[in-house]
């Protein structure tokens, strides 16, 4: 079986599913169903990314879009609402969106007629800078995973910015809904163990299994981290996985217990540390006489004309930078989860 055509088949099937999911979301009123389907949407697009050879993207989308986003939306729903209300008035509200959307769509279709054919290896996008990266990475940076090389070295400043975006999200959520400090107060109020809802409400299997799994997940996070040079993965994905381990712990063993083990303050420090580490690598390069984030200058100023076949500077630069990303992403995700999970519902906004 010709695998190119099989990929086309999968491509069409997945795109069709995406369309069905998206249209279904328009009609649905149950927020829970909407959130579930948006998770499905992310998941299907992640699968599609795999079919399109974008394994790193698929990795991130599966972890972030299908995992973290869904968890956050569920957490937010606990604090807000569970159904969408039907608006009283229609009319103008109906047609405005239609017009805006169709204008946008029309412009997009207009543009698409001049886009290069799908899969064209000679399109400008695939033949200029993109191709250069593939050809030059082995001799200039080193890692087999070109996405890692581009992400951390060629376009390292983008990634620095991206780390800061995540950090900013953590700062924003902490400023808006706190660090989950209310969880501690909440559990303090309920020091008496509450009555079980029903006799079959026990989860011994889950507890035992999770206890086994959580260290394994953390280990897997480090595998993804250090394997990022050779396969899909890297700091972001590893950070998310690490956060998932903590989130699982919180879900099974309780939030305040988890906050004793991984305090919010430590997570905050971790997030800041990641940004400082990333920026610090850049500053070290500056001090050694290179440009900001030029990892060739990580250890010393290279002699003019010298060539390091091992790319030690690049290698360790990428390693350190990805560690910074790991620290920030993992810590920020934990902070955000604490913030949402730790906010007791229906508390009026008396502070500030």
């Amino acid at each position, binding site marked *: 079986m010709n695998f190119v055509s099989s990929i086309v088949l999968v491509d069409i099937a997945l795109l069709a599913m995406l369309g069905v999911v998206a249209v279904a979301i328009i009609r649905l009123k149950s927020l829970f169903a909407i959130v579930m389907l948006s998770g499905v949407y992310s998941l299907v697009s992640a699968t599609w990314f795999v079919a399109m050879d974008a394994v790193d993207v698929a990795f991130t989308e599966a972890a972030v879009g299908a995992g973290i986003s869904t968890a956050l939306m569920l957490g937010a729903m606990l604090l807000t609402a569970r159904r969408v209300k039907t608006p009283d008035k229609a009319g103008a509200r109906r047609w405005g969106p239609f017009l805006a959307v169709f204008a946008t769509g029309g412009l997009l279709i207009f543009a698409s007629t001049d886009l290069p054919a799908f899969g064209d290896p000679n399109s400008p996008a695939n033949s200029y800078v993109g191709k250069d990266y593939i050809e030059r990475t082995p001799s200039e940076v080193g890692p087999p995973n070109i996405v890692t090389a581009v992400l951390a070295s060629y376009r390292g400043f983008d990634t620095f910015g991206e780390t800061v975006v995540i950090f900013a999200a953590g700062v924003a959520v902490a400023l808006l809904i706190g660090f989950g400090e209310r969880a501690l107060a909440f559990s303090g109020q309920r020091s008496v163990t509450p009555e079980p809802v029903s006799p079959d409400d026990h989860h011994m299997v889950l507890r035992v299994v999770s206890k086994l799994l959580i260290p394994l997940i953390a280990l897997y996070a480090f595998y993804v981290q250090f394997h990022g040079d050779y396969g899909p993965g890297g700091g972001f994905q590893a950070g998310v996985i690490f956060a998932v381990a903590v989130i699982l712990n919180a879900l099974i063993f309780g939030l305040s217990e988890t906050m004793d083990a991984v305090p919010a303050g430590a997570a905050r420090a971790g997030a800041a540390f990641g940004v400082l580490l990333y920026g610090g690598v850049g500053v070290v390069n500056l001090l050694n006489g290179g440009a*900001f984030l030029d990892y060739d200058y990580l250890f010393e100023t290279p002699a003019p004309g010298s060539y390091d076949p091992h790319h030690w500077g690049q290698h360790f630069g990428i390693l350190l930078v990805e560690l910074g990303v790991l620290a920030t992403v993992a810590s920020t995700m934990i902070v955000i989860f604490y913030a949402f999970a730790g906010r007791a519902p229906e508390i009026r906004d008396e502070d500030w």
Partner: protein
Amino acid sequence: MSWFAEYLWAPAALADHAAALIVAAPLIAAAAVAMAPNGRFAWVMTLATAGFCFWMALSLAGDIGRDGLVSYALGGWAPPMGIEFRADALNAMILLLIGMIAVLACIFSLPAVEREVRAEKRPLFYSAFLICLAGLLGMTITGDAFNLFVFLEISSISTYVLVALGASRDRRALPSAFNYLIMGTIGATFFVIGVGFLYAATGTLNMADIAARIAVMEENRAVHAGFAFIVVGLGLKAAMYPLHQWLPGAYAYAPSFVTVFLSATATKAAFYALVRFLFSVFNPQTFPFAETLLVWVLAPLAGIAIVACSFQAAFQTDVRRILAYSSVAQVGYMLLGVATGTALGLSAGMFHLLNHSLMKGALFMAIGGAALYAPCSKLTDLAGAGKKAPWTMSAFAVAGLSLIGFPLTAGFLSKWRLLEASLDVGWMWAVAIIGLASVLAAIYVGRVLEAAFFREAPEGGPDIREAPLLVLAPLWTLAIMNIWFGIDSSLPLGLAQAGADAVFSGVYALTGSAP
């Protein structure tokens, strides 16, 4: 241009990397500030960082004054492969503006933030401010289209939360911030779509490289659509009429320090990016459709913005909303200048941009200062404020006159130059609109001044007091600039002129490397 160099001297080691440091320093400092033990300490660090950024901006401006262009390859990777920071005189002007406003706003922030933000949140608040500052500086200096998106989002995300923090005073800050988030994200995503189309057509993300490559593609529909998406996306961020709906709410309900900083910088950075794409990436001389867009879309929109939003401002009862609507109208002025498509018009628009930052910064700062001890911004609340807080409100009056365009103020000169630019291309309607809008400005500023100076304070009104020195110092710095530049406009006009000349002489373009 040599008059730049004498301003401040930075050691070569710093000056060589000023382009990277001006963005990296606040990013790194933001992380450090988030760990600061208390608000005071965080404030000192923030002020130091803002000062450092201003210093680097001066140093960069000096370099640009000497060489015309600064290009910095991040990571040591030559441009199309790596990210480039590329700055000519136009960038230099905006960087200087943002740096200066950041320092002044930061001084103002100490008393303001202590009133409006809870103690344990202050370090994080300053951290968010620094992230926002870094985002704006990054947007201004970067020469890479996708990197621009990253910085756009850095500044946006921190802006959303800074606006939402106004909820401690008025809960309407929250829906405003949410609307801003939705609109801003749609705008940023439109920008990404546009960049995607340009990338599909050219295979590169470096703005100068894109410019060189699309110069031979004036018929490519993907390029046309990409252009449209970029203009809409950046227009949303720059509050270009009719994409400005997020602005009044966001400015009216944000904490006063945030409003001061944002009103003077945020839309300006986005406006710069818009100008950069309009003139340096899509050159109207090679792209007939770019010129069509300028004359037939942007110019009328600018005219409508000026009139409609001035009217709306005249009917508001809340001073901060008056000023917010006036901001949209002022963006219209800048756009009008830019839409003429001439060097004169561009310099007029940029000159007005500088002046508008000075006056809006001062106006919002004065309102924030006067209402420091009693959060209020209704017109009726301000009755008699001129007597209770003479220094604060007279600074407001100075900046207000500048906003109207009163002779001997900076606002007068920039409006004058806009008139010249309009006459130069024969737009009589623009002259009429500027005249009409000045009358409207006189009305809405006059309403505030009338309330503040010619009405008696009501019994039991809000506790308006003279602002402390930390407010008055930056406030009067701005107010004096408004007068100074109204008398001797050589500095701001020189900056604007240099920026416009740089754009039109194609300093930004790649030299000798046509594809």
